């Protein structure tokens, strides 16, 4: 009797597997059917000439003693937060290159950091499997977060001024079962989205530390996540070591679209300004663009001599330019609509780990394993 039951279940499992395979084939065919044009061909016809891009390194931010792993701009367009392998988080004034605040975490490899929209706090996380929020001491920023000591802020860092105080103000918001690879505030100071090596993404309430939503689907480490730029957007994208790029609905926790065309780990995902498309950067050395409404890859930025993995990508304000920070220490600059490689920017002396446009689109910042950050404009 029991074995009959088991064999029935086995049949169903086998049927489901077959059904899944059929659906995958149908998905591939349906996506192919609507592939009636090529973006680069259209782009070359429409534009009047190559865009001229003249950017130079304008600031070098020196102060980290370890590899810079992540950075984020404040919405005030001048402050920057950066995090490093040595456990330090620094807040900079990009205009003057002054360091405004230093926080020492009792962990190494702080893979992710983010500025709160109000500018009053920052979030960070890494090998400690947690995402923590720290208030910033700037008189011009008022944070309405109530900070409590209910999470365990025991250790204080080495000889930073007020290190004891800052660790007491630490609020642990997110707890994963593996490292944090990315974190970002949602459109307010009150919620944080995290991506983790435990193959999930999660949405957290900052005030209570409560898990609001959990996103399962990736088969391996999630390396990056990005929230839709649309004001009313409820979507976010993620990319990971399973080579999948996923589009998620935050309300239902469902993966609503999924793309697997990279040949290696996806390290970075960024939205195109309209929120209708996004770019991914991969260890396979390419940047790809996926369109949500066409439901497929519509562009691939690659060259035979660009071989090194891409760690971070971003679009210029209009989307005309896509920038990539690579393991060959360079920023490669591409024309989004023609696929042409416009230039490569030299400066860093080790691989580029993070790259982000400033909120007003006038400059971008890169962080590198050479321990510095550079601002380009």
């Amino acid at each position: 009797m029991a074995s009959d039951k088991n064999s029935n279940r086995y049949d169903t499992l086998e049927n489901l597997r077959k059904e899944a395979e059929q659906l995958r084939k149908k998905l591939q065919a349906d996506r192919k059917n609507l592939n009636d044009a090529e973006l680069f061909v259209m782009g070359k016809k429409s534009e009047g000439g190559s865009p001229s891009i003249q950017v130079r390194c304008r600031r070098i931010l020196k102060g980290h003693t370890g590899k810079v792993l992540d950075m984020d701009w404040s919405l005030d367009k001048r402050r920057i937060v950066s995090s490093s392998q040595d456990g330090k988080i620094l807040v900079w004034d990009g205009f003057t290159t002054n360091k405004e605040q230093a926080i020492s975490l009792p962990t190494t490899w702080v893979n992710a950091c983010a500025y709160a929209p109000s500018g009053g706090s920052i979030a960070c996380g890494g090998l400690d499997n947690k995402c923590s929020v720290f208030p910033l001491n700037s008189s011009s920023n008022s944070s309405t977060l109530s900070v409590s000591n209910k999470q365990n802020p025991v250790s204080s860092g080495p000889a930073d001024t007020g290190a004891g105080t800052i660790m007491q103000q630490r609020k642990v918001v997110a707890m994963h079962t593996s490292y944090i690879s990315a974190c970002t505030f949602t459109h307010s100071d009150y919620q944080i989205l995290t991506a983790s090596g435990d193959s999930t993404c999660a949405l957290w309430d900052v005030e209570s530390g409560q898990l609001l939503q959990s996103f399962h689907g990736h088969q391996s480490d999630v390396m990056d996540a990005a929230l839709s730029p649309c004001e009313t957007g409820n979507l976010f994208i993620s990319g990971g070591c399973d080579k999948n790029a996923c589009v998620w609905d935050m309300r239902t926790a469902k993966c609503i679209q999924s793309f697997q065309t990279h040949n290696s780990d996806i390290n970075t995902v960024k939205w195109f300004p309209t929120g209708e498309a996004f770019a991914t950067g991969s260890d396979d050395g390419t940047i790809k663009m996926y369109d949500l409404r066409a439901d497929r890859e519509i562009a691939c930025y690659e060259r035979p001599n660009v071989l090194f993995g891409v760690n971070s990508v971003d679009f210029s304000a209009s989307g005309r330019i896509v920038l990539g920070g690579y393991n060959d220490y360079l920023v490669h600059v591409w024309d989004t609509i023609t696929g042409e490689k416009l230039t490569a920017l030299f400066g860093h002396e080790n691989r580029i780990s993070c790259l982000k446009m400033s909120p007003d689109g006038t400059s971008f910042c890169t962080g590198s394993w050479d321990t510095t950050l550079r601002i380009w404009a």
Partner: protein
Amino acid sequence: MNSQLSCNLESARKLVDELKYHTNISRLPVSQAATELLNYVLENQGRDFLLVKPPDNPFKPKSSCMFL
């Protein structure tokens, strides 16, 4: 054995559901999606400060003038 089969069954069902969802979404032809993307870029690139000179850029060293 049974519980493991149920687990596999459960995740197999979820996967099929997800794939059904993905297969059933309505799609635009690439020509249309790309056209709209191109239009956005061409309409906005005149204000893209990586491409055109911004009215003022505190990162560019004109002089010792600092915006505080």
